[in-house]
């Protein structure tokens, strides 16, 4: 029984009511599930002594523009103990553009969630410091959204006087 099967079995045993879509593409395992489970699943993945996904390598999002669930949150995790990388995905719709913050699980998620908020406008509930990461604080838009023009909006960013 290889580690992927052990992993899936442990999660389904722990969360029997959770519906997981599994994809295994080129030896990269991805779990997709509902966004309400993100905190319990992440806590379990990190704290279980056999799994120990203690590194949250990256958090980002995908904008699907016209799909029903517009955004997909992507979490890349790593387990040093098992030398294994795992990807979690969770859909967020534009009408309710929020998801629970995983800063309570991994401290490093703080800035990654700020970046995701800055670029996509997804709000993270109970995030301790949800400010913009790159763009100025008074900037009104979220540049990586598909409906943001590539060349920007004239006058939206101030320049010093000549």
């Amino acid at each position, binding site marked *: 029984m290889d580690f992927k099967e052990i992993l899936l079995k442990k999660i389904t045993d722990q969360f029997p009511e959770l519906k997981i879509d599994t994809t295994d593409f080129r030896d990269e395992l991805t779990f997709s599930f509902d966004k309400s489970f993100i905190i319990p699943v992440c806590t379990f993945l990190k704290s279980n002594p056999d799994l120990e996904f203690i590194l949250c390598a990256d958090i980002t999002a995908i904008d699907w523009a016209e799909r029903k669930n517009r955004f997909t949150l992507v979490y890349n995790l790593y387990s040093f103990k098992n030398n294994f990388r795992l990807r979690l995905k969770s859909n967020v719709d534009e009408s309710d553009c929020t998801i629970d913050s995983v800063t309570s699980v991994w401290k490093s998620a703080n800035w990654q969630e700020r970046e995701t908020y800055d670029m996509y406008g997804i709000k993270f509930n109970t995030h301790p410091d949800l400010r913009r990461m*790159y763009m*100025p604080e008074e900037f009104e838009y979220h*540049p990586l959204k598909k409906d*943001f*023009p*590539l*060349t*920007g*909006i004239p006058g939206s*960013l*101030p*320049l*010093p*006087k*000549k």
Partner: protein
Amino acid sequence: MGLEANLTQDGFFTTTVDALIAWSRKNSVWPMPMGISCCAIEMMASGDPKYDIARFGSEVMRFTPRQCDLMIVAGTVTYKMAPVVRKIYDQMPDPKWVIAMGACTSTGGMYRSYSVVQGIDQFLPVDIYLAGCPPRPDNLLNALIQIQEKIGKTKARDFQNIKLPELTVIQNN
């Protein structure tokens, strides 16, 4: 040797103050290396023995704007960086000159993007636009020579009525 070796007694020559000041100014242009991205590597290369910017009297790269005459803006200027570049430019004493080094600095270059200023002349007075991505060091030296020609044509009274920038004081509580 030089001219002075041919003098038999105490020599003198006549000139104008303007010519003397412009001559001394143009041969010791002290650059402010505003190295922001990859153009800065070529700017550094222009200081090495192969290209040797010291031949033109500009080897003293000052890392404080208070001692500079020429700002070499080398690299992509983003909207977030623009106030910093402007503030450093404002801190330089007059008279001062600006080289926009490379495609990004001159026009935004290949970064036709929401985050990149499409040419620093939107917020700085630019004297030389230097083409290239990045420009070779000899190209930068050419720009320096052109700046020197420009400085050589200046007169002292050109700088009499320079308006000082409005300073904004930021206080923390």
